[in-house]
């Protein structure tokens, strides 16, 4: 197990390097000018050139990359061009908020998805299966920003039960675990949970349906094992694949919630990323993408390790 873990950790290094190169180049390719965010648009060409030099944006790309990566390995992600604040402060503050949202959505989505998936797999081809299938396809198909708006109109605008935006009455910096704050989390978390509910339930349905038809299940019944014990075996067999899907979904939830965070004005990494894109805030853009990508890599690593722990066969591959 330890050698497997070391092998996987070593593999992370080239991936992380590749991610850093790609995210640096991607943001440089986009047309636009980060100085737009910090200078009046009619600043003279001379003033623009001075500012470009001050931020090192006049240097060739390889040198800009070398400076960036050099600072990065020393723990310095630079400063946001638009806000002047340290990128690390901006990114980690936003990632913390996104993690809160993603974890809440996962807490809602994964148990529901697994339960519905098992239900549909166990009662395959029955009306239960059809209902769950319809529900999960709807979940995957409905644009979640649209659903978010509808939920806002019903529960915020019309009923006045839940707030429509923000991360608490005093902002995310003053977050507390009480209803006054948690109520801000309800609508975005529910909206964000809809897609993973559909994906997880479809995956678990397919897995459990397949496993239930295998010979060893019949053998377990033949040995006189109870239905609950048999299902436990089925669950364990399905767990490795289901876990990997859920791990990937958690990564998507963290990095892929730009629309939801925009609709609900949630101060997370997606919202930060969207603003950084519009402002061409290169250091912030690079930092945010890198952190999210590395989080994704880390999630994959964790999933691999947990899978290996559950299913020893994986360690040998």
């Amino acid at each position, binding site marked *: 197990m330890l050698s497997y873990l070391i092998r996987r950790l070593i593999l992370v290094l080239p991936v992380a390097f590749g991610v850093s190169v790609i995210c640096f180049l991607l943001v440089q390719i986009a047309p*636009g000018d980060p100085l737009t965010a910090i200078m009046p648009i009619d600043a003279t060409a001379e003033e623009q050139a001075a500012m470009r030099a001050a931020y090192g944006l006049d240097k060739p790309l390889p040198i800009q990359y070398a400076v960036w990566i050099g600072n990065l390995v020393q723990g310095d992600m630079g400063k946001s061009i638009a*806000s002047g604040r340290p990128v690390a402060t901006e990114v980690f503050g936003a990632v913390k908020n996104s993690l809160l949202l993603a974890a809440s959505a996962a807490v809602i989505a994964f148990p529901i998805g697994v339960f519905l998936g098992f239900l549909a797999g166990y009662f395959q081809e029955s009306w239960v299966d059809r209902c769950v299938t319809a529900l999960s396809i709807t979940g995957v198909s409905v644009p979640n920003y649209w659903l978010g708006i509808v939920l*806002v109109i*019903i529960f*915020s605008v019309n009923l006045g039960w839940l707030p429509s935006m923000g991360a608490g009455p005093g*902002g995310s*910096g003053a977050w507390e675990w009480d209803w006054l704050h948690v109520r801000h989390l309800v609508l975005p978390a529910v909206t964000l949970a809809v897609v993973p509910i559909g994906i997880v339930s479809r995956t678990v349905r397919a897995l459990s349906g397949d496993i239930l038809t295998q010979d060893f299940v019949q053998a377990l019944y033949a040995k006189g094992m109870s239905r609950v014990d048999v299902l436990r075996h089925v669950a364990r067999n399905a767990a490795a694949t289901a876990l990997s899907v859920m791990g990937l979904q958690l990564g998507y939830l963290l990095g892929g919630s730009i629309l939801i965070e925009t609709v609900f004005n949630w101060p997370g990494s997606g919202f930060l990323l969207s603003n950084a894109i*519009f402002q061409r805030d290169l250091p912030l853009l690079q930092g945010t993408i890198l952190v999210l990508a590395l989080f994704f890599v880390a999630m994959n690593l964790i999933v691999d390790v947990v899978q290996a722990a559950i299913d020893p066969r994986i360690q040998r591959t």
Partner: protein
Amino acid sequence: MSRFSRGFAALATAAAMACGTLAQAQGTLRIGMTAADIPLTTGQTDQGGEGMRFMGYTVYDSLIEWDLSSADKPSVLIPGLATDWSVGEDELTWTFTLRDGVTFHDGSPFTAESVVWNFDKLLDDSSPQYDPRQSAQGKSRIPAVASYEAIDDLTLTITTKEPDATLPYQLAWILMSSRANWEAMDMDWEKVAMSPSGTGPWKLETFVPRERAELVPNTEYWDDTRIPELDKLVLIPLPEPNARAAALMSGQVDWIEAPAPDTIPAMQGNGFVISSNAYPHNWTWHLSRLEGSPWNDIRVRKAANMAIDRTGMMPLLGGLMVPAKGFLPPSSQWFGEPTFDPSYDLDAARALMTEAGFGPDNRLTVKALISPSGSGQMLPLPMNEFVQQSLAEIWIDVEFMVVEWNQMINLWRAGAADPAVEGAQSINFTYFIQDPFTGLIRHLDENLIAPNGTNWGHYSDPEMQELFNRIKTTFDPEEQTAVLQQTHEKFVDDALFLFVTHDVAPRAMAPKVKGFVQAQNWYQNFSGITIEE
């Protein structure tokens, strides 16, 4: 995003919310801004007009300010931290008498040394207080300033590089922050950002970057008429229009800036108040005057202006626009009395096009640079399609080149001759046109031809240049106004732009918000507002 907005409006209407469920906050006004972040808090704000509106003239003052007290007349300059100013016989040296007894929020006195210290903050990169971020925002606003000196506590002189009678307008940009506070914050502008100190009517009490800023009244403010009546002013960045609308309608904010036009009927139907007024903004096509541009023919320019049914465009914007009659809004003090009327007259437009050699069998094709969104651009796609259809009526076929807003700004700076604009002969750019420089000079001054300045179309005309020189050398305010009017008359009579419309700065607010007077200005006064419970 417009389809997204329309969907929201339809759903919002269907939802028919009840106003009675709104949360109440005694004496607190919560505003949803369009900005994605709290504007820079240290003094010289970023984020354009919105930054100055919410974090500039609230926390800070300038030597000379805009009069924001009236909705009925154009805004003019009034004394701020300077009570009096005059220019010497050399037409270069200005003497300012400063207001006595003014203190910063931290209690330190405001003197002529404070002004010198603030100018150094922007212009002298060897001074310890030099702040590149504030300098980036402020330096280009005061191009005339050559030197400055504190004569005594209440007397300041500023020398300009050349005679420039627009200096007072330039100074209205420059906001005064406190040296004592900067020193107390370890001379660190990042620390000052969290706890700034100005002389303005509001003090920044709480600041959560990207999420909220809370301002409380400065009860010691030097102008009794502008001491805030509210207990608190809360600013919340809400860049997404639908999120702003939902926040207002669910009672999380009391006021939103720039509601999307298609959400306005739903808001009005539910008792929310829409405030709007003319202000110095325009939505134009800035035309290329390079050799070979079809816009070099005044007949084509006039015909295009007369082909646009601006009244017909109004429903597209929910009525929230002022049809353009020139470059400046008709209510501007500098509008003058132009002889050319760009009002809709299809027959006259076609006659001009025929005279210019065009017709149904000999159509003119032009290429126009537009953006799908952008600050102040209103609803650029449908509005440009409206213009495209209007021009087709006079045999002008418009081919659009659509670029994202940030790139559009680059192409605007690059100018019509730059290869990156791919031969586009116009750019749809909206303008802040509040003072003589931003309103008139910068667009057509031959010394500012792009990329050195913002004369995008490479326009050059000795007569116009002479008018610009006279604006700068006419120191008597009344005479200067007359020159500004003449200049604008030439803008219109020569049909130098495709004049389409002016925005009216709509803002939606809960009915409990009382006492707001929307000045004809990019900035506003929040001091007279109350919340009626």
